[in-house]
């Protein structure tokens, strides 16, 4: 499967082996792993990117998102604080010190200040909206997070990452149907986007469509195979495998669970699932 995220990740891995001091190469590797639903690998690469260049804005934002997904909320807020300090140093110096406030409200306040600096329509920085969205998402305030992602999408209609973030936020606030629509937008823009397909599977699980969920998850897993199509997968994403296992359990299909325990080869499921 040409151009799969797994193959692109291999290319970036080769690049950082050659030039391990290249922050952008680490950042691209990290972003690819996150899109490929391999969060731990993404975090390792993004940490390297930030280590090589503390002002790598894209890496800081991506790392904040990955930490949020793994529930490392404090680390996520720290990355966002570093991001806003690097990009909007004036906002930080002009805002009165807030040492007595917890980091979440402190960083949120800085992002709100930065958003006010640029009135809507004029040079609005969608990344500020994304950061705010991540902050609201982290505190469970999904309605506000949705507003932020929608606002960022107004200026970046073709940003498949944003469509996925909007979808996941909708899904986690219980709006599975709307979420599925957003994921489909993301997948239309980028068919090889494994994370959006994984999320689609999760939303199907949420609404009790277990067999459909399994198909999406198998589809996502199949994108992890590299080269020949014998169905073998290396460096399997544990979240994908675990979630597929849960889907089989929900289907009350112990036989499928056993198959999956024995082998990660997706071809063994093709006679029953269409993916």
């Amino acid at each position, binding site marked *: 499967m040409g151009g799969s995220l797994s193959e692109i990740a291999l290319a970036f891995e080769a690049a950082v082996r050659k030039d391990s001091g290249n922050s952008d190469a680490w950042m691209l590797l990290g972003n690819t792993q996150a899109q490929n*639903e391999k969060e731990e690998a993404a975090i390792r690469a993004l940490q390297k990117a930030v280590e090589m260049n503390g002002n790598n804005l894209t890496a800081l934002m991506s790392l904040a998102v990955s930490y949020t997904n793994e529930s490392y909320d404090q680390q996520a807020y720290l990355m966002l604080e570093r991001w806003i300090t690097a990009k909007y140093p004036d906002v930080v110096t002009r805002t009165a010190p807030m040492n007595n406030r917890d980091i979440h409200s402190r960083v949120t306040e800085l992002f709100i200040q930065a958003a006010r600096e640029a009135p809507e329509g004029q040079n609005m920085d969608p990344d500020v909206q994304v950061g705010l969205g991540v902050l609201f998402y982290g505190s*469970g*305030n999904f309605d506000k997070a949705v507003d932020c992602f929608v606002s960022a999408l107004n200026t970046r209609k073709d940003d498949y990452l944003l469509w996925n973030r909007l979808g*996941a936020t909708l899904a*986690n*606030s219980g709006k599975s149907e709307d979420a599925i629509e957003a994921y489909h937008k993301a997948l239309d823009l980028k068919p090889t986007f494994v994370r959006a397909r994984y*999320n689609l599977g999760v939303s199907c699980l*949420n609404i009790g469509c277990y067999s459909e969920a399994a198909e999406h998850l198998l589809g996502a897993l199949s994108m992890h195979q590299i080269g020949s199509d014998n169905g073998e997968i290396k460096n399997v994403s544990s979240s994908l495998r675990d*979630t597929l296992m849960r889907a089989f359990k929900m289907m009350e299909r112990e036989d499928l669970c056993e198959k999956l325990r024995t082998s990660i080869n997706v071809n063994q499921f093709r006679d029953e699932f269409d993916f």
Partner: protein
Amino acid sequence: MPKKHIVILGAGVIGLTTATLLQQEKEFEVTVIARHFPGDLSIDYTSPWAGAHWRSYATNDDSRLIEYEKKTFHHFWNLAKASKNNSGIMIVDGFDYWDRLPDDFSEPWFKDFSPEYRHLDKGELPIGVEFGITYKTVTINAPVYLNYLLHTFLSLGGTTQRANLSHLYDCIKNDTDIVINCSGIHSKTLGGVEDTNVYAAKGQTIVVQLPRSHVNWTFERYSAGCGSGGIAAGGVITYVVPRDNGEVLLGGTYVEHDYSPEPDLEEASAIVQRCLSTRPDLLPHDQTNLVIKKNCVGLRPCRKGGMRIDAEWIYLENFEKKILIVHNYGHGCYGFQSSYGAALDVVKIINSSMFNSKI
């Protein structure tokens, strides 16, 4: 992953079964909050007044209820067969009698499910009965089974709290992740639920004490006004449910929208008469009459459209977090016999809702 904290409102058969199944899952820590617990007797607490026996009223197209009742039957059957049986469940012969074979009679769905299901021969029918079926089934000593559930739940590490709440959200604390409403009849008035489809169907029964094992059968008799579906408003229904300790429960009545807690003593003696005339062998040879041990009144938690089992996320501004609200109530006259299957479904719904999407 830290454990998810679940609060269950209600300690009837639905609440306690749901609590026990969830406490068994390693991801959850369950607290049952209720006004009444096993051992309490109150008109506000329906479960201890139940018969109870397994006799499905699910229509042939109600696949959800059929699934629940199948699963519950298997569970009860296994409990009854367990070497150490302290659950108050026993296996008996079940009989259904119709005074008149309804014109629209069709075989119940459990024809191919219940062990040893068959039509009764003419010679096996009580006087005044035109048609009947028999099958193996189980009876449940409701107070004993409720105690068994509570004991199982506590031994798994579950906790309980006595409280009288007027709003569903009153049970939510900082660490609460999931709330499950198993408040039965109270879902009609409980704030945050206020389900206008909920109503009571009052039932009156009598408990008599007989020698242990004297009665090893249960019956239901459908007389004037009952359709083919069995128990119904306006119909005369008669039933006998033996318990493992020699108590035998005689019933019954089915009066919708009647919330009065007092037993009608005339009705009580009419019930005894109906039971004796259906099965004279209820009376032991050395007894001339049945001695009433207890008159019972219970309010079946009925719901237009059937039981409600679903889940929704809510965001609570004051706690700055989202909470999963699950409902499991409205089981009418089939609470015990659907309890286990319904609770399994709740576990499934909660597990499905726990998957997080990734931004």
